[in-house]
């Protein structure tokens, strides 16, 4: 067994390195990812070790990054594209939605698109406009794409490798404000499957669902209510498309209450889909409606207000209380 204490950022870096060692067709592309190692240093040192053909500092053009990734994928490469910040994926949105997502179906399976689109997402870092967005629903709404959102170093290390090895295009969301969170990672372990949710804390009163940066917040809420003698079951969804809700249904059938937490605006966010499915599958067990805690239906605010906008411990506790009082 070889265990290391890693941050999410470093775990991603090591995972990328491993994927590049394992498969010579893996090519990293993005703005500032080479010499600089990316603005978050996730690709630090990789260009030095793997060369400029495998770690490509691209021109400043996101449509170009994703569009050329399609061609490279057709040629048998496995492009791993870094989008510098969530808010800058939109110039590439056309390529992602109309080409990357649809090529497999269009070609009757002849042209697989093993492309990974890495996006640091979410708020809480005191940034200016476009650096704090949670665009996962746009991608989850697009057939042909898979969407993963990691919450911890273990999933970061394994998840990035699994995503790269996977034949379908994957939007791989990295919780940027948690890049520096640490955990022990056993690099010899057998990883959990990529598209599976995970119960990260057992409990009986309310099932709380989260992914990416909000998992930590959900766990804090569980900690806080434990002092009052209540117990929350916390599920890290890990993948937002496809959703793995069987463990969630099992949990909700026991607790009868369900709260979904994400940073993205509530309207038509992942919580809406989850609430519908939980209601369909667990209707007779529900003691309260499925509640959603998310961002408001406003543009992400200037950073002085982001703590007001983002779901925090209190907002999760408030929803837990409302679910309990029902």
């Amino acid at each position, binding site marked *: 067994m070889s265990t290391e204490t890693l941050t999410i950022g470093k775990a991603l870096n090591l995972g990328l390195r491993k994927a590049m060692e394992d498969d010579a067709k893996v090519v990293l592309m993005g*703005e*500032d990812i080479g*010499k600089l190692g990316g603005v978050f240093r996730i690709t630090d040192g990789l260009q030095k070790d793997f060369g400029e053909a495998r770690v490509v500092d691209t021109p400043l*053009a996101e449509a170009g990054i994703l569009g050329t990734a399609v061609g490279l994928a057709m040629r*048998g490469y496995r492009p791993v594209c870094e989008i510098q910040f969530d808010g800058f994926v939109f110039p590439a949105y056309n390529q992602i939605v109309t080409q990357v997502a649809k090529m497999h179906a269009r070609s009757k399976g002849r042209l697989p698109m093993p492309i990974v689109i890495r996006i640091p997402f979410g708020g809480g870092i005191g940034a200016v406009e*476009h650096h704090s967005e949670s665009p996962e629903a746009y991608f989850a709404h697009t057939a042909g794409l898979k969407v993963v959102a990691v919450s911890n170093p273990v999933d970061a290390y394994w998840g990035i490798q699994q995503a790269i090895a996977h034949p379908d295009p994957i939007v791989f969301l990295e919780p940027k404000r948690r890049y520096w969170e640490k955990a022990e990672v056993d690099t010899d372990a057998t990883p959990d499957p990529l598209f599976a949710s995970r119960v990260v804390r057992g409990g009986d009163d309310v099932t709380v669902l989260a992914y990416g940066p909000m998992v930590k917040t959900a766990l804090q809420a569980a900690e806080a209510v434990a002092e009052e003698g209540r117990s929350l079951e916390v599920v890290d969804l890990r993948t937002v498309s496809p959703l793995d809700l069987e463990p969630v249904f099992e949990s909700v059938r026991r607790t009868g209450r369900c709260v979904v937490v994400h940073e993205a605006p509530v309207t038509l966010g992942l919580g809406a889909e989850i609430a519908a499915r939980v209601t369909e599958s667990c209707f007779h067990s529900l003691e309260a409606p499925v509640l959603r805690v998310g961002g408001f239906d406003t543009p992400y605010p200037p950073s002085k*207000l982001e703590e007001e906008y983002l779901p925090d411990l209190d907002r999760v506790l408030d929803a837990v209380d409302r679910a309990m009082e029902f």
Partner: protein
Amino acid sequence: MTALPETTEMVDPVPGADAPHLPQRSELVQLLTPEGERVEHPDYALEISDEELRNLYRDLVLVRRWDVEATALQRQGELGIWASLLGQEAAQIGAGRAMAADDMAFPTYREHGVAWTRGVDPLHVISLFRGVDNGGWDPVATGFNLYTVVIGAQCLHATGYAMGLQRDGAENATLAFLGDGATSQGEVNEAMIWAASFSAPVVFFCQNNQYAISVPLERQSRVPLYQRAAGFGFPGVRVDGNDVLAVLAVTRQALQAAREGQGPTFIEAFTYRMGAHTTSDDPTRYRLASELEEWKLRDPIARLKAHLSRQDKADAAFFESVEREADQLAERIRGGTVDMPDPDPAAMFDTVYAEQTPWLAAQRDEFVAYRASFEEAGE
């Protein structure tokens, strides 16, 4: 089964990646040498009084002081981030002062010098970087659009605005700012196509500061940027971006041509980002200190100062008074920043739509009540 080709071992470097760049022609428009010597250019005559020269000097010094103060404020935790204009003062002041009152500027996030020339209060720019709002100035009243952070998007806005001016028969033009990196964006190229197709009165003002964060110009272009304009069908000019006089003359002429219906011009202001990309950046990871030393010799302020002193166009008292004014400005910026009130949290709901929707109004009410519940609980 797929019919993908089996490729052989990947070649590194990719063949052609290091193809030689076309030789750069030295067609740099310059009216003031780095040593401060006034030179003439056949296409760009500039009549300028001593007083105007002193005013330009004052502009340059004041915006640099603003910039230095803002960087310090960020270091002290008063700003979330700051995008420094250090080294690009002449490009921005020259361009800004070339504009007429009713022309419209479309800046990126670094055009503090242009903001200054449009009468925008520095604190209204600071408030964006402090996280209070997305820029506190009135874009209509100042003729200076709000900062655009998504690279290149503003070039299309400037083109559309210019098309509007054209339709209205207004004798004005727009000035679209962009960086060297931005020239790679599809939207920027679309803007140039639109501008050309409609002969829109827009001038593209590209500050080639040699880098897009860490990525050097060579990754964006194999030809000097100003030469790209020819492919779109309008003139391209490369100007010494550290020479405020040359920038002023070139931009004036391009704006005038646009106003007169001659269509767009692309100006490449050849300059250097003397600081980090932003306060979050560490340039030692991607460029040599010697490069900066070289560019310090072409400092935009030093050369105008040398010119003014040597030609007896300004005396010691003038330079001292500008320094004093800069100190006062810095003090005002510091005080205004530290005392800047935080925004009203509920305001984030208020300007999303022209008229508040019932759903958002309900969300706002809930938000206000939720916050009040903490205040009642004395938390």
